[in-house]
């Protein structure tokens, strides 16, 4: 049961297609776990529908109708087929970005219990990355230079403000300091979308900071 949800601000911008693509993908992935937010988005889309039907109609010539009618029988473009062999049971969108299993990705080790894999969304301002924490492993205390959205994909973690499990969505602002620890029993994999790099705060981890420069794109 998902306990932590995106704030209504984000859902509204999501429903209006006003979020950058990386953040939008993170919200979409949460929706695949969360019926409550799916319904909220449907209601927020109704607000869009109500505005849409009251727009001041702009003239459209009959030639445009003729052109559309002439193209109705064109073959439809091919759609992406989900990866049947994948055993990660990921939301379709992430399945597409990962294109295989977690093991197929390039993982970069940050500390003994933390590795990161950067995925490409094309978003020039946001990093879209998977973080993998070994069971019981700890991410050293850090802040974020900007805003971070996190979605738990597998396992769970705890930090100073609570416990998070599969499907939970967490937003952190730059000034929040926290020390996530993966729950016991299984490794934890999270999706994180950031607009500024992670910054370790403790002296003994700070030398790692240059390794974590933002990988947007």
């Amino acid at each position, binding site marked *: 049961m998902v306990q932590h949800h995106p704030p209504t601000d984000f859902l509204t911008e999501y429903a209006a297609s006003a979020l950058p693509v990386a953040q939008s993908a993170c919200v979409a992935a949460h929706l695949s776990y969360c019926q409550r937010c799916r*319904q909220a988005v449907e209601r927020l889309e*109704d607000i869009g529908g109500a505005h*849409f039907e009251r727009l001041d109609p702009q003239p459209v010539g009959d030639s445009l109708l003729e052109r559309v009618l002439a193209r109705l029988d064109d073959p439809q473009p091919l759609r992406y087929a989900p990866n049947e062999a994948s055993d990660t049971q990921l939301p379709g969108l992430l399945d597409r970005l990962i294109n295989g299993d977690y093991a197929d990705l390039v993982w970069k080790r940050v500390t003994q219990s933390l590795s990161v894999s950067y995925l490409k969304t094309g978003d020039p301002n946001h990093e879209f990355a998977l973080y993998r924490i070994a069971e019981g492993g700890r991410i050293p205390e850090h802040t974020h230079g900007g805003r971070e959205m996190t979605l738990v994909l597998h396992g769970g973690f705890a930090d100073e403000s609570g416990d998070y499990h599969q499907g939970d969505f967490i937003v952190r602002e730059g000034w929040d300091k926290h020390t996530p620890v993966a729950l016991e029993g299984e490794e934890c994999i999270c999706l994180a979308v950031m607009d500024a790099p992670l910054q370790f705060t403790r002296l003994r981890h700070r030398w790692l900071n240059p390794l974590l420069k933002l990988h947007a794109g």
Partner: protein
Amino acid sequence: MAIRKDANGGAKWNAPTGRRTDEWSQALVLVGESQDRGAFTRFFRHFAPLIKAFALSGSSLSAAHADELVQEVMLKVWQKAGGFNPEKAAASTWVYTIARNCRTDMFRRLQKFDTQLAADDFELESEEEESFVVLHTRRGAERVRELMGELPPDQAQILAKVYMEGKSHSEAAAELDLPLGTVKSRVRLAIQKLQGMMEA
């Protein structure tokens, strides 16, 4: 902003009759079930001018791109009509989501945005929802339309900017020369009001 204005300059929010909404839902069902070109043509004549208005909202697309968007959206309407469920969504909301996705993709194409994701990839596969959920959703859609007119103009203006122009809260704040906090609180108040009234 291309929302119809009344004599006092305020947006007009007359609630449409139930029959009108049903007419477009029925046309969509005919298109989906029997590829009815007559129903599609009626649907086109009503919605294409709205899609064009949507394309031109915020005037970031040229007239040529707006016409291209109308074509793309109406072709998608034809292809996807089979998946339209009149119990679950209002026809206007359904077309809005298609137009929104196509416009987002067009913006990204025009900005030479290198992404493998199309806005359609963000849509979840439709699934069977329990019937009480469906009833709630449908009633909600009708209520939103009725209640929109009860919002104060400053809240209505920002909602229109966010939804029709696809502007983020910070972009809306910059364009309206308002602090970001003001924009956020107006959107939040408007949404709360609509949700509160929907549940009442």
